[in-house]
């Protein structure tokens, strides 16, 4: 009779031991994962920190305010990233203005309006796929559709639209996710009060999804800001001396076409206007053509062309300048030649020059949106350009521009996190 309790007590003891064993084993695993996870996280952060520190060390000599505000130059120490910052800012503006409203509208449409049918299913699948398309493909698309098709040129507009399309899926997906997190009860409450679909979106859906939407927009922008490949594809320039057309500013000589061609043969031309006279400053490299890409400037020559000059007069003016000869070649291009660095092409039949002169005579100011068709460079392309130069000095510039780019993206992501935390705090259901 007394055996039964002892026996059952034995069972209990056995169970307790087993339970203790199980608990101990689980605790071991817990510790294992905790330590492993901590080590891995630390490693990730350490690698990142080392990379950033290395970049900053490389960039150190250039990390001063002037670097941000100086124009481009062939002298690494004199070169700054003003044009790249301006270009990045303006391209991002176009990207934001196109991608954000379109993306939010599309997200709202898909979540709140679209009926579930094969058509919307196809749209949804495509949006998911678009987010995964390599960015170079977007560049090719933009080249064919915008540059060649719609003739938007190698401009800020083209770049902004390209990047806008590139990040559109990100904005759409973020908007949809954010909208989906709003409980259905909130929608029903709004409708039950007599609100229309539009009023429900306007007063509830949009405000309550704002934190997610804004976060998505910022993530989209920080993705766009670092994109290089599609911009190279559509022909962004590394070397830009002119700032984009400032709204309502006085028109300068539209000689970008001329300068572009000059750059192609490594002889940068700076152009400027004074009165009714056009001036080229042609910098003569001290090395033979094609030997090195970015040669050191040896001499400059100013060419002064009177207003309203004909092609022949332009030619004469160039001829009159020491070391330079001008001729129309067999294809009708005006070639400027120099014994040392060979030829540069100024333009077909001097049409660029003639147009410039005609425009200058008209006078006038830029329209508010003329900057859209300006050529541009952006930070990543500037980095890319400098990195590809052989001189050590330009590597420092590249590192410094890289630091600026990293800072900008870090700040954007910081803002995204801040917004998410701040706006989410007010939302609870």
């Amino acid at each position, binding site marked *: 009779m007394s055996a039964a309790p002892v026996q059952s007590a034995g069972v209990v003891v056995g169970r307790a031991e087993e339970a203790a064993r199980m608990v101990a084993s689980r605790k071991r695993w817990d510790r294992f994962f905790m330590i492993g996870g901590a080590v891995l996280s630390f490693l990730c952060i350490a690698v990142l920190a080392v990379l950033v520190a290395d970049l900053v060390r490389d960039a150190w000599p250039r990390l001063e305010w002037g670097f941000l505000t100086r124009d481009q130059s062939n002298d690494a120490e004199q070169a700054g990233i003003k044009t790249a910052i301006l270009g990045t800012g303006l391209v991002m503006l176009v990207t934001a203005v196109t991608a954000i409203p379109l993306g939010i509208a599309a997200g709202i449409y898909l979540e709140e309006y679209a009926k579930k049918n094969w058509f919307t299913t196809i749209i949804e699948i495509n949006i998911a796929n678009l987010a995964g398309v390599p960015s170079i493909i977007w560049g090719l698309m933009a080249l064919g559709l915008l540059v060649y098709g719609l003739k938007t040129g190698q401009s800020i507009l083209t770049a902004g639209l390209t990047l806008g399309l590139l990040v559109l899926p990100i904005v759409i997906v973020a908007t949809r996710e954010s909208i989906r997190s709003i409980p259905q009860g909130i929608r029903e*409450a709004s*409708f*039950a*009060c*007599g609100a229309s679909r539009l009023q429900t979106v306007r007063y*509830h859906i949009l405000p309550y999804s704002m934190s997610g939407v804004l976060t998505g927009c910022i993530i989209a922008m920080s993705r766009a800001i670092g994109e290089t490949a599609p911009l190279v594809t559509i022909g962004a320039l590394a070397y830009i001396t002119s700032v984009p057309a400032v709204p309502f500013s006085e028109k300068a000589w539209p000689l970008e076409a001329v300068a572009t061609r000059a750059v192609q043969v490594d002889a940068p031309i700076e152009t400027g206007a004074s009165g009714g006279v056009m001036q080229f400053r042609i910098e003569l490299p001290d090395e033979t053509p094609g030997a090195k890409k970015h040669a050191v400037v040896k001499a400059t020559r100013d060419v002064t062309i009177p207003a309203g000059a004909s092609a022949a007069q332009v030619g004469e003016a160039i001829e009159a300048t020491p070391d330079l000869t001008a001729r129309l070649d067999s294809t009708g291009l005006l070639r400027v030649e120099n014994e040392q660095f060979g030829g540069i092409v100024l333009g077909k039949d001097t049409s660029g020059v003639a147009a410039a002169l005609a425009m200058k005579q008209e006078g006038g100011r830029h329209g508010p949106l003329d900057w859209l068709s300006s050529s541009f460079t952006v930070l990543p392309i500037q980095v890319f350009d400098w990195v590809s130069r052989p001189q050590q000095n330009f590597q420092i510039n590249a590192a410094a521009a890289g630091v600026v780019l990293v800072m900008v993206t870090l700040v954007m992501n910081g803002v995204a996190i801040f917004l998410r935390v701040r706006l989410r705090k007010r939302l609870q*259901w």
Partner: protein
Amino acid sequence: MTSANVSNLQVGNAGDRQRAVEVVVPTHGRDVSGTIAAVDSRAASSSQSASLVKAEVRGLDFYYGKFHALKNLNLAIYDKKITALIGPSGCGKSTLLRCFNRMHDLYPDTKYSGEIVLHPDGLNLVGPGIDPITVRMRISMVFQKPNPFPKSIFENVAFGPRLRGIKGKDALEAEVQRALKGAALWEECKDRLQDNAYRLSGGQQQRLCIARALASDPEVILFDEPTSALDPVATLRIEELMRELREKVTIIVVTHNMHQASRVSDYTAFMYLGELVEYGETPQIFQRPKKTMTEEYISGRFG
């Protein structure tokens, strides 16, 4: 056929928003199929005067896709009374309730047939040409889970009036105050109108939702298990409030709780599998049910 039972529809004073139609029902509520289950108010000792009908459900069928959720329902909702819908889970109480404010229109593949006629003007709430928004402007709803907007208390209540084009701080404040008083919430939150609604307790949130429903100045308020997420004290306050609201509006309440139905309601409809089994004055349903199924349900033998 339908008008045979509900006869002599007498329209009250023209222009009076609260007017309703007097119904003289010669017999007891008959069998559910085919006729309107109206209650002979003169025969029932508990009612003081002849009840007016606020809404009539006539031959209502409702489908979720192919699923036939409501089957040929007929019943009269009495003006400024509380009508409770009871029945086991899934019998279609919420579905019926949500027909009254066309909530089903928000979702695809739903279909109404039959009529819900709102008196005094005879608007068919589920008529194909009727805009759900015009329906919801007159009939508001309180949901099972308190669902205030994540905005201030003030903005929650002001939403309905704003939708109706009321502008100006003073006018809106007056509306908000009236609604909050109506929902017995004014004293508790008159000093914190700008606080986020989610800082209120669950019971207060539900009363805020009632205030929001009241601010639209509705003719009918629909309650879908309004206390199922609340504690007993908050539940009692809501029930008390519903009794007070009965002075001004017609109330239809879905409830899972038999005691609640018997405590609060004037009329009770018992539903089962999408059909109306029995409808009558609440004391009659609970004390002298005519159908054995009703009796089994209210005595807790199934459901």
